[in-house]
C-alpha cells in the first residue's frame, strides 16, 4: 500500500476543547478500495478527528491532504466538494422531510424532487438498498434512516465515506446487509472509514485497523494480522480480560411480576401489547429487540413514568410483601428500591443536567435525604469520587460540567450513579450504548456484582453477543409483544435476530 497515494492523509492534527485535548498530533492515512476501522476508547477522539475531516470542527493544528494535495476543510460544504461524506452516529436528517427532500438538501441548482427521486432509485438499484424517496423520515425505522444517510452521501458523489458507529442501532441481519453494501462500495474503489466498538465487526469487515488512545495515535495494523485481545490492549494501554463471568443465580425469587401489560403512547399507538414476565432476584433478565419495540415503555411503566392501559406490575419485596406498582408515583416506586437508568440516544436527555457538575448530578438522587433546607455536598462528592474512580471517568475534576465530558464519560456518570444507589431492582437500558470495550466490561462487571448481591437486574441491550453472554434469561420484544423468552446459555444469535423481527421467530 505504501506506493499508492492515500485518499486522505492527516498529519499532526490537534484539537482542544477548553482544557480537554481531544486530538493530539494525530497522523492517519486512508486508502481507496479499503475499509479502515478506527478504534479507540470513549473520549479517545475518534469522532472529533472524523468531524474535522467532514468540516464540522476545525483543527487547531496540523494539515489534511486529499489525494496528495493539501486542503483546508473549513466547512461541511468544502468537505462535500472534496468527496468526503460522513454518516453520523446521530442521523443528520430532518424528520418532517421526505427521503428525497433530505437528499436534495444543500445541493445547488433548481429544486426538482422528481429527478432527485429518480436518481435515488438508481443508487438504490446499484448497491441494493431499499428506500422509498417519498416516505417521511419520521415514519422510518432506524435502519431505513441510516440507508437514507448513506444514499445522501452517495448522491453527492462522495468517494470517501466515514461511518460513525453505524451498527449500534441495527439488528444483526440489518448489520449484515450494511456490510454487504460496504463491501460493494469498497470494490467500487471508495475509501471507507468505520468507527465501531464491536470487535467481531472489525475483524469481519475491515482491511486495516488504526487505534487512537486518549487523543493520540497509537498505530495501525492489517486486520488479518491482529486479534481482539491485541486490539483491546492497544486501545486501553494494558491487557483486558474479555470474558463475562456468568455465575448461576443464587436462590432466585420473583421480584417484579408483570402480567398482561399494555401501554399506549400519547399518539394512541399501542407500544406494549399484553406483555407478561417475571424478573427474579439474583438474576439478569436481558431484553432484546429492535430499537423502538417497546423497551423504553416497558421500563418506564415499571418505574412509574408511563401511563398503563391495562395489566398489572407487582413488586414482591424481599420480606415477602406484595405491592402493586401501577398507580404509584415514580418517587414512591424508587423508595421501594426500584432504580431506573435509561441511557437515551442523546445521553443527556434523561437523568443528568448538562450544565451541572458531576457532584451536583449525584446530588439529584440524594438531595431528598437531607434534613435542612441547605444542601450538603460531602455525601454526593463521595459518591461522585467513587463512580469516577470505579469506572475510570475521564474528567478534569468533580466540578467539571457534565456536558463538557465526552459522550461515553457522560454515560459512565449516569449509569454509575444508578448502580451505586443500590436498589433491589435495577432497570437499565442501553447501559453500554456507545461505550468502548473497556468501560463496557467495567459496567458488565458492576451489573454482575449487583446480581450476586441479590438484585433483580433488567438489562435492555443492543449487542446480542453481550446479551447472550451476560443475561441469565433473554426476553425478546417484537413490536411491543413478547416474541419469546430464551435461556442465556441456550440462546443463539441468529435465532434471537429472527425473533426480533417476527413474533415467535418461526415465520421467515
Amino acid at each position, binding site marked *: 500500500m505504501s506506493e499508492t497515494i492515500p485518499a486522505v492523509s492527516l498529519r499532526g492534527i490537534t484539537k482542544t*476543547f477548553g482544557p480537554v485535548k481531544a486530538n493530539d498530533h494525530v497522523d492517519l492515512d486512508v486508502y481507496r478500495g479499503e475499509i479502515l476501522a478506527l478504534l479507540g476508547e470513549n473520549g479517545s477522539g475518534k469522532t472529533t478527528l472524523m468531524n474535522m475531516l*467532514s468540516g*464540522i*470542527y476545525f483543527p487547531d493544528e496540523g494539515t489534511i491532504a486529499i489525494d496528495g494535495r493539501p486542503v483546508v476543510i473549513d*466547512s*461541511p*460544504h468544502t468537505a*462535500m466538494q472534496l468527496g468526503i461524506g*460522513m454518516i*453520523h452516529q446521530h442521523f*443528520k*436528517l*430532518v*424528520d*418532517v*422531510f421526505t427521503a428525497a*427532500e433530505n437528499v*436534495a*438538501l*444543500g*445541493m*445547488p*441548482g*433548481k*429544486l426538482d424532487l422528481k429527478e432527485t427521486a429518480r436518481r435515488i432509485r438508481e443508487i438504490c438499484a446499484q448497491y441494493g438498498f431499499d428506500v422509498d424517496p417519498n416516505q*417521511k423520515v*419520521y415514519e422510518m425505522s432506524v435502519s431505513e434512516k441510516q440507508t437514507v444517510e448513506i444514499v445522501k452521501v452517495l448522491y453527492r458523489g462522495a468517494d470517501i465515506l466515514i461511518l460513525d458507529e453505524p451498527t449500534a442501532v441495527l439488528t444483526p441481519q440489518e448489520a449484515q446487509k450494511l456490510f454487504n453494501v460496504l463491501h460493494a462500495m469498497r470494490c467500487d474503489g471508495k475509501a471507507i472509514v468505520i468507527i465501531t466498538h464491536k470487535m467481531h465487526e472489525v475483524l469481519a469487515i475491515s482491511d486495516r485497523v488504526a487505534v487512537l488512545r486518549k487523543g493520540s495515535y497509537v498505530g495501525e495494523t492489517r486486520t488479518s494480522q491482529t486479534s481482539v485481545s491485541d486490539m483491546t490492549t492497544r486501545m486501553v494501554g494494558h491487557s483486558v480480560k474479555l470474558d463475562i463471568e456468568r455465575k448461576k443465580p443464587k436462590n432466585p425469587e420473583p421480584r417484579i411480576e408483570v402480567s398482561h401489560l399494555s401501554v399506549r403512547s*400519547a*399518539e394512541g399507538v399501542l407500544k406494549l401489547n399484553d406483555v407478561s414476565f417475571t424478573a427474579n432476584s439474583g438474576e439478569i433478565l436481558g431484553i432484546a429487540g429492535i430499537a423502538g419495540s417497546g423497551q423504553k415503555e416497558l421500563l418506564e411503566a415499571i418505574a412509574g413514568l408511563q401511563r398503563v392501559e391495562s395489566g398489572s406490575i407487582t413488586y414482591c419485596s424481599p420480606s415477602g410483601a406484595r405491592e402493586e406498582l401501577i398507580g404509584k408515583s415514580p418517587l414512591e416506586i424508587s423508595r421501594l428500591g426500584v432504580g431506573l437508568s435509561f441511557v437515551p440516544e442523546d445521553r443527556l436527555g434523561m437523568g443528568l443536567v448538562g450544565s451541572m457538575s458531576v457532584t451536583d448530578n449525584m446530588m439529584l438522587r440524594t438531595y431528598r435525604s437531607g434534613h435542612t433546607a441547605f444542601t450538603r455536598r460531602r455525601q454526593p462528592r463521595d459518591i461522585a469520587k467513587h463512580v469516577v474512580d470505579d469506572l475510570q471517568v475521564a474528567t478534569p475534576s468533580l466540578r467539571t460540567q457534565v*456536558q*463538557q465530558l465526552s459522550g461515553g464519560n457522560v454515560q459512565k456518570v449516569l449509569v454509575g450513579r444508578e448502580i451505586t444507589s443500590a436498589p433491589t431492582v435495577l432497570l437499565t437500558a442501553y447501559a453500554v450504548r456507545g461505550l468502548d470495550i473497556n468501560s463496557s466490561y467495567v459496567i458488565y462487571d458492576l451489573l454482575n456484582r449487583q446480581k450476586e448481591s441479590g438484585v433483580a437486574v433488567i438489562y435492555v441491550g443492543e449487542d446480542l453477543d453481550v446479551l447472550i453472554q451476560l443475561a441469565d434469561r433473554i426476553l425478546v420484544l417484537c413490536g411491543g409483544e413478547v416474541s419469546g423468552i430464551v435461556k442465556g446459555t441456550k440462546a443463539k444469535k441468529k435465532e434471537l435476530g429472527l425473533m426480533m423481527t417476527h413474533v415467535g421467530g418461526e415465520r421467515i
Partner: protein
Amino acid sequence: MNPFFDFLLAFIPRAVVQGTPLLYGSVGEILTEKSGNLNLGIPGIMYAGAISSVIGGFFYNQHIVETGGVMSPALAVLIPFLSCLAGSLLMGLLYCFLTVTLRANQNVTGLAMTTFGVGIGNFFGGSLIKLSGSDLPSISLAEISKYFHAPLPFAKDLGWFGELFFSYGFMVYLAIFVAIVASWVLKRTRAGLHLRSVGENPATADAAGISVTRYKYFATCIGSMIAGLGGMYYVLDYASGSWSNNAFGDRGWLAIALVIFAIWRPGLGIPASFLFGGLYILHMYIPTGTNLAVKEIYKMAPYVVTLVVLILTSLRNKRENQPPEHLGLPYFREER
C-alpha cells in the same frame, strides 16, 4: 336585497382591511420562524415600520407644501414605502445581530425589541406632531394616503362584486400576493427547502453545507420588512394617513398568534387573517343595546379564538402541523 346580504357586504370589506396588517405581520413572522427565530419583536417592528413610513411621508409632504409644487403619485407611494422597508430592515438586522451573531436569548431580545419599537414610534411620532404644529395630538398625511387608499379603477362598475373584491387599496392585494409568493417559495424552491431545514434541524442543514447564519439573517430581515409593511398599511391606508401614538394597538401580538392559527402556512394565513380581522371588529356589528359590558365581551373574541387554537394545535396530531423543531433555540456548530 335581503338584510343579511347587506350586512355581509358591509362587514366583509371591513374585516379585510382589518385583517391586512395582520396578514403582513403573520407572513413576516412565518418566514422568520421557519428559520428557527422566534421573533417576538414583531409588534415593535410593525410599529417602527409604520413610523418610518410616516417620517418619510411627512417630509415629502412638508417639501411639497413649502415649495408649493404638485405631489407626484409615484413619489408619494415610493418614499413612505422605502422608508418603511429601511426602518423595519434595521430592526430585523438588530434582532439578528443579537440572537444569531451574539446568540442572545430570543424571547428576551424579541420582547425588548417590541418595547424598543413602540418607544421609537412614540418618540418620533411626538416629535413630528411638534414639528407640524398641529393642535391635535396626531399627524395627518391625507394627501399621501389618497394614493394608498385608491380602489381599483373598475371597482365602481361592478356593483356589489366590485365592492367586495376590488374596493381596496393596492396594499391589500400586495399582502395577498406576498403571502402566495412566500407559500410558493417555502414549498417549491430550493431556498425554501433549505430555510425549512434550518428551522427544523440546523445541525443537519449545516452538515449539508447550508449557511445557517445567512438563512437566519435573510429570513428574519425579509420577514421584518414584510411585517413592517403591515404597520405602514395601517397608518397610510386603514387610518387614512393619520398617526397618533399607540393607535396601532395590539395588532402585532395578534399577528404572532395568527402564525399558530395558520399552522406556519402563509397560504392559510390569508383566510385566517381576514377571519381575525372580522373577529376584531365583530363587536361593532352585533347589537348589544346600551350595555357596554357585553360589547367588551365581544371584543375578546380574537383572543379567545387564539387560546382555543393554541389548545387545538397543541393536541398532537400531525408532525407537519407542529412548529419548526428548533424554534427559539440558538445554533452553534461546535457546541457539545
